[in-house]
């Protein structure tokens, strides 16, 4: 048996409702025929006629209920469904009715079989129903062999139509789904190839150029150090940029500020950041103040490295610049001369933040800057 397209997808949902819809329509058709038989066919056993309709109606309700569950896919369901359909299809013979009052109901089993397993179960269901008609018609007045053969042919034709039709729809849908997957994969591969090309181009333009410069300047350690640091910074900034959820992040802005000072003063700025956020005008002021503190350390501390630390937490950003250098007396005129009051403390206060400068002569200086991320905070 060909494997039916049993993925849970829109086509399956649609087909299920076609099957259930057919059964509801068949039931309505049967109800009208049963009404006619009850009123016109005096020879028919009324209990059997009405009983067949009640059975069909109850089973249709159960089908409707099952349509919301995974039942309808299973063969146990299909067999039970068939027992009801056969009972309904032979009821006219049992009742001794003149007309075949089952309407389209038995065919709804053929459709159900096609839904469960495409062509073969549908043909089997049609054959079983046809056999029932032939056996039922034997010896019954008013039911000729010609008519039975016609019924059997009708069932088989319906089975072929349903079985092939559903198989065609499903195969087509599988092809379409596969095509979509192939297209998506191809597109993802194209994006990856594009990313790779971009990375290669970037490495070529930056790192390879710098390595060439390093070779040329191998005799000048200071230049080599500065080239290496510059390249490291550039590469890290680029990696940060492609992996950061922010377009203009605080982390990147701080690293840029640190890098500027490294370049200008030939010192190492060791940067550690905890948390990140999008830059705002207020945070620009914070970055400027931090840069000023770094410059002060570079100019006055007399050391070759300084720590830059930032933390984003509880709606505010804290930046600490710390050196183990000369230090100074924070209350003296020396502090004034370093621009601490105006360009650090004043700048932070103007933007609603704060700055604290702790310095011990001979031990170093720590400048702690703090500002709320939003207006009015902090």
């Amino acid at each position, binding site marked *: 048996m060909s494997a039916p397209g049993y993925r849970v997808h829109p086509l399956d949902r649609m087909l299920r409702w076609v099957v259930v819809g057919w059964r509801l329509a068949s039931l309505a058709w049967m109800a009208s025929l049963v009404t006619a038989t009850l009123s016109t066919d005096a020879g028919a056993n009324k209990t059997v006629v009405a009983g067949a309709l009640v059975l069909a109606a109850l089973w249709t309700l159960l089908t409707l209920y099952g349509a919301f569950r995974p039942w309808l896919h299973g063969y146990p369901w299909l067999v039970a469904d068939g027992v009801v359909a056969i009972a309904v299809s032979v009821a006219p013979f049992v009742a001794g009715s003149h007309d075949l009052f089952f309407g389209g109901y038995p065919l709804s089993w053929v459709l159900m079989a096609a839904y469960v397993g495409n062509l073969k179960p549908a043909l089997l269901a049609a054959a079983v129903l046809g056999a029932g008609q032939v056996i039922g018609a034997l010896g019954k007045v008013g039911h000729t062999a010609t008519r039975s053969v016609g019924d059997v042919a009708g069932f088989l034709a319906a089975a072929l139509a349903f079985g092939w039709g559903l198989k065609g729809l499903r195969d087509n849908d599988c092809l379409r789904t596969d095509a979509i997957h192939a297209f998506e994969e191809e597109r993802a591969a194209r994006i990856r190839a594009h990313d790779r090309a971009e990375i290669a181009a970037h490495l070529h333009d930056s790192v390879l150029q710098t390595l060439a410069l390093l070779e040329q300047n191998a005799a000048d350690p200071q230049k080599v150090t500065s080239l290496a640091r510059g390249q490291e910074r550039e590469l*890290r900034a680029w*990696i*940060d940029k492609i*992996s*950061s*959820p922010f377009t203009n992040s605080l982390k990147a802005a701080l690293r840029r500020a640190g890098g500027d000072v490294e370049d200008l003063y030939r010192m190492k700025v*060791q940067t*550690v*950041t*905890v*948390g*990140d956020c999008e830059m705002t005008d207020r945070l620009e002021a914070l970055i400027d103040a931090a840069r000023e503190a770094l410059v002060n350390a570079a100019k006055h501390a007399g050391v070759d490295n300084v*720590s830059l*630390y930032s*933390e984003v*937490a*509880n709606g505010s950003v804290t930046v*600490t610049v*710390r050196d*183990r250098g000369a230090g100074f007396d924070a209350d003296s005129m020396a502090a004034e001369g370093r621009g601490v009051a105006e360009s650090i403390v004043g700048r932070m206060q103007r933007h609603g933040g704060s700055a604290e400068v702790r310095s011990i002569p001979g031990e170093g200086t*720590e400048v702690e800057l703090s500002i709320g991320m939003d207006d009015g905070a902090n």
Partner: protein
Amino acid sequence: MERTEQNLRVFVVDDHDIFRAGVRAAVGGQVDVIGEADDVDPAIELIREREPDVVLLDVHLPGGGGQRVVDQVRRSHPNIKFLALSVSGAPEDIIAVIRAGASGYLTKTTSAAEVLEALKLVAAGHAVFSPQLAGFVLEAFPSVDVADVDPDLDRLTERQREVLRHIAKGYTYKEIAAALYVSPKTIETHVSDVLRKLQLSNRHELTRWAVDHGIG
């Protein structure tokens, strides 16, 4: 050589020849570099065979990364210590190696003297937190107000965060001890506690938290 006791036996795992040569040149006189490997499987085999005191390990290795080396070796040789080195700034990789059982992490730009000092500390059973690692751990662990929302999350105490914050700012253990009015021994205990917490905490929660906060 003025050292009288036996030199530290160090094994170096890095896939870059230049870097291994650099390490040999920088610390070779002070410690015994008893072996080298450039890939995960040979590293595991050789380390088990030679049983060094400390393995100096690159976080990023072909064939499963440094994490696998730590994990595999520690199963059979729990006493061998690991010190991770990396140029990477990717917190999740470094935290993964620490969680696997490494006792510390340094960036490759760390000076030879600091690497030596760190090797000795690690061999003596201490944790070595570089400023970067302190920053990563602060990022990876939920802060106290997040834990208030979900009390089941592992979290650092405010004191531990304070210590890590100082490390991230470039303070030495001694300087932190002075700033917090405690002994350097207490700081070492805090750092070891953080390391243990990191290694024992629920991986899923840490990862989820890190992802939620756009880290890594």
